[in-house]
């Protein structure tokens, strides 16, 4: 493992109990059943880089994302972030709020990821207050304005409610909320899969620009090879909870080693657009 890795995941596994209720099991005589969602996955992400996990539904990519940010508990494996242990099987998840502050997430749905009853300003203010980053009221307000500006929204937007924005704008608000705690690392879980393509490009460009400006490290989760191609410095291909192949985007796309990777790419619809690129 290179020394400049920001996040290192080793031997991560997660099983889900998909057994029927015990009474039904008793009647039918069937035993319990376990679904292995993530199976011994290891990878690391270099500081300031984007690592993409790509896979189809049920590949375990979202479960990995949720385990890394601490929304889900791994069954085994370790997670190290910025030299600190975020999870190991012995001591469990860390309760260190300074680590949690460095770690944020942008979710898939622009509709359910913002509380519909909260004004945008309050949504952005919450992480600032929760982590006690800025105590003075006017400085807090200034920070909210700065965040809105960073994601391409304007100051009066702080007084609006989420439903007054389009899907792409809501995703910008979501990104601003993730930035509010000054994180170093952001997990992006399919951040554009619910958006229209013309807006998807805006959001992807915004993420790239923020990465450059703020030296952010990203874990980018997607089902779309083409999106991953333009976003990632390194790509891991997941299939049924296992990491089957990992490489630089260019090498992976030109000469995939796994038939599964090749199949994923071959079935990605493409067009030789005269104006594209």
């Amino acid at each position, binding site marked *: 493992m290179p020394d400049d890795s920001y996040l290192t995941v080793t031997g991560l596994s997660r099983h889900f109990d998909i057994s029927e209720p015990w009474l039904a099991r008793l009647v039918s005589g069937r035993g319990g059943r376990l679904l292995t969602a993530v199976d011994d996955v290891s990878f690391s992400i270099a500081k300031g880089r984007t690592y993409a996990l790509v896979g189809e539904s049920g590949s375990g990519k979202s479960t990995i994302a949720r385990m890394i*940010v*601490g*929304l889900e508990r791994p069954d085994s494996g370790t997670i190290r972030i910025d030299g600190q242990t975020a999870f190991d099987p012995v001591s469990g998840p860390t309760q260190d*709020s300074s680590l*949690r502050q460095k*770690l*944020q*997430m942008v*979710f*898939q*749905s622009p509709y*359910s*990821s*913002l*509380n*519909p*009853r*909260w004004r945008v300003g309050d949504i952005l203010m*919450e*992480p600032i207050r*929760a*982590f006690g980053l800025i105590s003075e009221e006017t400085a807090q307000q200034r920070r909210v304005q700065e965040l809105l500006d960073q994601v*391409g*929204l*304007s100051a*009066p*937007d702080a*007084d*609006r409610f989420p439903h*007054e*924005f*389009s899907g*792409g*704008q809501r995703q910008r608000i*979501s990104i601003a*909320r993730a930035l509010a*705690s000054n994180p170093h690392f952001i997990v992006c879980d399919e951040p554009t899969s619910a958006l229209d393509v013309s807006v998807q490009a*805006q959001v992807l460009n915004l993420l790239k620009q923020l990465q450059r400006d703020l030296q952010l490290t990203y874990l980018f989760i997607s089902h779309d090879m083409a999106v991953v191609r333009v976003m990632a410095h390194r790509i891991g291909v997941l299939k049924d909870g296992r990491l089957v192949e990992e490489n630089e985007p260019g090498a992976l796309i030109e000469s995939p080693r796994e038939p599964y990777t090749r199949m994923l790419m071959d079935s990605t619809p493409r067009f030789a657009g005269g104006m594209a690129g």
Partner: protein
Amino acid sequence: MTHSPHTAPPTRLQRVLASDFVFDFTRAPLAILAAAVVAFLFLVAILAPAVAPTNPFDPASLNLMNGFTPPMTDNMFTGERFVMGTDDQGRDLLSAIIYGLRVSLFVGVMSVLLAMGIGVSLGLVAGYVGGWLDNLIMRIADIQLTFPSILIAMLIFGVLRGIIPPDLRDEMAIFVLIAAIGLSEWVPFARTVRATTLVEKEKEYVQAARLIGLRRGQIMWRHILPNVIGPVLVIATITLALAIIAEATLSFLGVGAPPTEPSLGTLIRIGQDYLFSGEWWILTFPAVTLLALALSVNLLGDWLKDTLNPRLR
């Protein structure tokens, strides 16, 4: 690269006036009428000392000679006239109704607030925390639902009265009544809030709140509660009608408001004694008032339900 409209965000008042809710309301004559009746009755009840012709509880204002004066008729002894007539003790019925309305509404509103407080809290906890706590709360709710709520209220009323020292009973009667009705009506609140909470807690904004380290209580109170409040208001309105009827029923049965503070139910009970001897007004006016109140609140609740429902996700 700013795409938001450059106009200033609307003020709170502008938002309210521009809402679909207000728009629908201005086009629902029945809802407007019901709201007007409810507002009028509330106003009269609140301003009772100012609007009632007499204070029916002040013995000095009573004159037994005025007993059984029919409405809009000169009393044959005193020559006084009463809009709604008087009862057996010569009490002005209109004043008695206004003060009775006050008691009925106070008990109704307070017991709904109690039921709402208990139901919403338990529903939130059951839905968000889940597990054995959820099971415990919902099984209690199930058991309570197998009995008619009026029976539960009578049971609670009896138990509470037993606990309270006898010399405080009359003083505390109203509060015992509120507790009894409130405790018998919390289940619909809890069930609805639990169901909505189960949906809301899976949403990504709740996970975002977990990520910044908010505690369960904070997430329930600040994030989930504002999103379950819509259906709660609908249930509260419908429950208000139920609570008013429950109070009237208990008082009619003689286990509710004490004779020193008669509610509409108490007045109906008294009036019932004279129905067959020809003094119809003593029963009729309080009964019509109760009917108008309960019906209006119910209509308002139904309209709220229909209007808010499509947007309850």
